[in-house]
Every structure is written in structure tokens, then in C-alpha cells.
């Protein structure tokens, strides 16, 4: 047990994981480039579901190793953070010296967010044709009323708006306006406007998703940023 603790507390372990993870990132980017067709669907499905369905471990092994490296990094971060907090508490300088630990907590939250997203998320793309009612989940239906496209003087799209009516099995929801970067949230599902088409018949492509990891990742990101700025403030002050 002592050996495992020493291993997880060692800075050399952290550096080793960093280097290994960076190698995997470089290898991964080359693997993506070499298998464009295979990876074209990876963002359409939660990661673990995609991995189990794609059945190509000979190509995707580096993702499994990434998960392993991140799990090890998470463990090491927990051990190092706990050890540092205890040490600093004994010295009575906890508040002045915790920014790195705040950042570590943020990283852990982000990892948890990614884990939840990869394992329990839900994503589905649905095309809605004008006037037709389409099932977007077994309990939720959507009807596209109309779309509006704003263009600039050169004919480029500058804004889109889609009027969509949502209804449940037993209840009706109000009309929603979907716009880029302004999703609608219905029954805990995020509804995102992806593209609009005003050709022969009006239609829109929407993404429906539920992402239980997002709040954790968001909290982690905010904690990480706050810790970062605290760290910067304390270091620059001490250097000056």
C-alpha cells in the first residue's frame, strides 16, 4: 500500500502520465487523420457507446489507453491534492496556498463530466420538414412551423430562426423559437438548431441531446479558471 501511495504521490509519476498522454494525443490525431471514415461518426454518439458499437479496437486502442491514463491522473491528482492540503493546513497557510489545489479540483470535475458524458449521454439528430410532426423521442414530438433566414448584402446568412411546436404524449408545450446558440430546453433535453434549408421545402436539422456530464464539466471549468487566476495573482505577487 505504501508503495502505491508513494507512486501516486510522486511528481515523476505525474510527469510520466503527462508525457504518455501527450504521446497518445499526437498518435490519436494521426489515427483520426488515417481513419477519417471510421471516425466520422464518433461525435454523433456518446463515446463509450460508439466504442462498443464500432468494434474496431485495433484502431481505437489509443482511446482506451487515454481513458486509463486519465483515470491514473485523476487518482494521482486526488492523492497529491489531499497530501498538499494536509501539509499546508499543518503549516497554517491553507488559504494563501491552495490555488493549485483549486485547479486540481477543477480538473477532477472536468474528468468526471467527460466520464458521465461518454457513458450516459444521449444524442440524436432529427430532420424536421415544414408542417410535418416528427417524433424526436418516444415521448416528444415536434412540428416545424416556419423558418426565417436573414442575409447580409452579399447574400451570406447572418441569422436563422425556426418556429417549432413541441408536444408530449399527453401535454402540449408552447411554440419555441430555435436560433443558433440559443437552444430550447424541454423535459431536460437540449434542442439545438444545426442547419436550415429553404430550398424546395423548408426543413431544419436539429440535435436533441441530454448530457449529464455537462454541469460537472462546466463547474470544473469555472473552478479551474478561478484557481488559475488565483494562482497567477499569488505567483506574480510573490515574484514582484
Amino acid at each position: 500500500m505504501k508503495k502505491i501511495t508513494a507512486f501516486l504521490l510522486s511528481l515523476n509519476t505525474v510527469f510520466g502520465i503527462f508525457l504518455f498522454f501527450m504521446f497518445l494525443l499526437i498518435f490519436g490525431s494521426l489515427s483520426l487523420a488515417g481513419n477519417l471514415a471510421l471516425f466520422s461518426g464518433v461525435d454523433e454518439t456518446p463515446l463509450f457507446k460508439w466504442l462498443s458499437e464500432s468494434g474496431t479496437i485495433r484502431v481505437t486502442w489509443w482511446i482506451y489507453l487515454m481513458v486509463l491514463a486519465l483515470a491514473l491522473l485523476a487518482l494521482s491528482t486526488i492523492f497529491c491534492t489531499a497530501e498538499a492540503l494536509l501539509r499546508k493546513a499543518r503549516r497554517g497557510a491553507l488559504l494563501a496556498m491552495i490555488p493549485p489545489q483549486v485547479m486540481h479540483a477543477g480538473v477532477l470535475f472536468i474528468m468526471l463530466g467527460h466520464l458521465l458524458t461518454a457513458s450516459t449521454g444521449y444524442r440524436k439528430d432529427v430532420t424536421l420538414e415544414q408542417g410535418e410532426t416528427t417524433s424526436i423521442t418516444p415521448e416528444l414530438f415536434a412540428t416545424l412551423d416556419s423558418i426565417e433566414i436573414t442575409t447580409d448584402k452579399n447574400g451570406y446568412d447572418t441569422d436563422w430562426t425556426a418556429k417549432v411546436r413541441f408536444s408530449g404524449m399527453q401535454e402540449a408545450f408552447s411554440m419555441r423559437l430555435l436560433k443558433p446558440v440559443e437552444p430550447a430546453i424541454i423535459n431536460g433535453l437540449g434542442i439545438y438548431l444545426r442547419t436550415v434549408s429553404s430550398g424546395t421545402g423548408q426543413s431544419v436539422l436539429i440535435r436533441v441531446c441530454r448530457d449529464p456530464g455537462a454541469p460537472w464539466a462546466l463547474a470544473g471549468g469555472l473552478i479551474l479558471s478561478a484557481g488559475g487566476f488565483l494562482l497567477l495573482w499569488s505567483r506574480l505577487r510573490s515574484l514582484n
Partner: protein
Amino acid sequence: MDGAIYCGLASDEGRSLFTIFLLLVSATLYIMGLMESKKGHYAFLAGLTVHVASIIERTLTLGTLPLTEKHDNISYMAFVMALSYLYIHVKKESRSLSVIMLPLISLLLCVSAAHLPINTVSPFMRSYWFYLHIFLYFTAFGLFGLSFCAGAVYMHGRKSEYESMQYRTALSGWVIFTAGLVSGSIWFYSAYGTYWLWTSRELWTTLLWFYYGLYLHARLMKGFRGRTASAIGTFGLIVALFTYFGVGTIIPSPPTQF
């Protein structure tokens, strides 16, 4: 009607060419900043003024902050470096830093000028989170550029003040870069319902974050200093520039619907 469209396009092209002209004038003046004595300082200030004028011109053309495409982003990165240079220069004149930094700023402006300005903004970019993301991201890149220059000066002359400057600017850049990634994730989630994509650019951006994280951890926790540490910190900008320019071109990504 055709005539009106033609005039509009011609006017857009004219404004784009004017912006490119301003950037090239600014790049020339920045290089002239290498002149000895006050002349160099005035040339640099003139370069900065013309650079600001080009940014204002782009703001007026786009009707929003010019941070939405490569031309503007690279120009903004050079602007951050120029402002940092001015700040350092006012505190303490450093000839050796000028010799590396001013040509790098000019080079960046030439690269920016080589990318034709795009005068339209995608509906998905109309978000405060997007602007915050790009603003922080390229502020960080500018600071990585400054860190690179300080590291190069340190490796050449071994003056510890430059090693300290390299560390401080890398740390500042990394913290701002982190906030830039977080705001980018928030924007992407609100636009597309996901905060991560399996693309080469995402992987390399993560790599860049880990790279500077490794350098800063080593410097902070192990007191890792000297020429090797400085070289590792300096190489960070190469990773950053490859992430921005190389990935996507040299290393393609799977086709996504984003």
C-alpha cells in the same frame, strides 16, 4: 440591381485591400522599431497606431469585434505581443528582446495580411462566449509569443531576468488559455450541444495545454531551470503555432457536421 451588387462587392474588396495595406505599413514600421535611439521608438509607436487603425477599420466593416477568422485573429495576436512589448520597453529598454520580438510581430502581421479578410460572421459565432473564447485564446497565444522571445534571449545571453520573464508570461498565457478553453467549451455547448469533439484540432489544443502544464509544473514544483527548461518553454510556441496553422492542413480531421 447587378450594378448595386457589383458596387457592394467592389467596396468590400476595397476595404479588405485597405486593411491589408494598413497591416503591411504597420509591419514595416514595427521592423523600423529596430533602429537605434528615439527614432526606433517612434517608428514602433507609429506601427502600433496604424495597427490599431486597422483593427478599428475591421470593427467598422464587420460591425462587431474582429475576432472571427484567421486574418483578424493573427493580427490580434500580434497586437497583444506589441502591447506587451511596449509595456516591457517602457519599464526597461531591452535591445536583445527587440531583435527577436519586433521581427516576429512583423512576420505575424504579414501572415495576417496574406489571409484575405472575410466580411461576414456565421450565425453560430454571434455569442458573447465565442468572443470571450477567441479573445482569451489569442491573448494567450500573444503571451506565449512573448514567452518564446524571452526564452530565446535567455538561451542566448543566460540573463536570469529573461528566464523569469519567460516563466511569468508562460504562466499568464497558460491561465488565460485555460479560461479561453473553458469559455470556448461553453460557447460550443450552447451552439451544438457538445463541449468536446474528436478532431485533430481538439487533440492538439489539449496537447498544448498539457505541454505548458508540464513545463510550468516542472518549473514550479521541481525548480526546473536553466537552458533545457528554457528550451522546453520556448518550444511551446512552436506547438501553439502548429496547433493553429498545421493541424487541419497537415493533419486532417474526420468530417463532422460542425
